[in-house]
């Protein structure tokens, strides 16, 4: 047993300190997840749909599909 005294450990406000840490952590983790999802998934998806439909011609698409022979009621010309 060493003759030097150990420093007195933190005795009070232990829960308060833990709560503060976890409250901040939880806030930033959840905001971070939301931001990552928005910039990683949601926005690219919206852009992909906007790009697709910007110059989309459904009739041209239909004629291409008909030529390939996938329709039963609209055979190729």
């Amino acid at each position, binding site marked *: 047993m060493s003759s030097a005294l150990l420093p007195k450990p933190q005795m009070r406000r232990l829960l308060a300190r833990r709560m503060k840490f976890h409250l901040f952590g939880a806030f930033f983790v959840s905001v971070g997840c939301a931001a990552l999802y928005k910039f990683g998934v949601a926005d690219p998806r919206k852009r992909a749909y906007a790009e*697709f439909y910007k110059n989309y011609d459904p009739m041209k698409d239909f004629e291409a599909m008909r030529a*390939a022979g*996938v329709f039963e009621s609209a055979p190729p010309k």
Partner: protein
Amino acid sequence: MLASRAFSLIGKRAISTSICVRAHGHAGVVKAEDFSLPAYVDRRDVPLPEVAFVRDLSAQQKALKEKEKASWTALSVDEKVELYRIKFNESYAEMNRGSNEWKTVLGAVFFFLGVTGVILIWQKHYMYGPIPHTFSDEWLSAQTKRMLDMRINPVEGISSQWDFEKNEWKK
């Protein structure tokens, strides 16, 4: 005690059992009646157990307990430690020490995953019949061509990866 010894033969790591610890600090054998009495326990959430660790004090320890009734400044450091060890089995530091048990656990997990893998490989080779003809390369390529003709998933999915002008996959 015996179970712990047997396991230590298979793997040289500590496996914790509570049964062997109970008989430790005291005479040796734990009688059936003792299970209904308050017991000593080394737990993080029980800082002051119901009984002291050492139940039957030797003559020397009894003398020390008498000395404890007088002024504590008269006690030497070793006597204070001895009084602590009478009352408690392990200090918090000793109680919370890590062990090598995780290596045994991880090893056992991988071992049994390997055993499962061997079983699965044996099954595939000796037991299962052929897979359906719809998994052949010709069928899969015809299937994919039909999916592209139908413009399946044209925004983000498979048809968006195909270049319809050049008739090849997009780079």
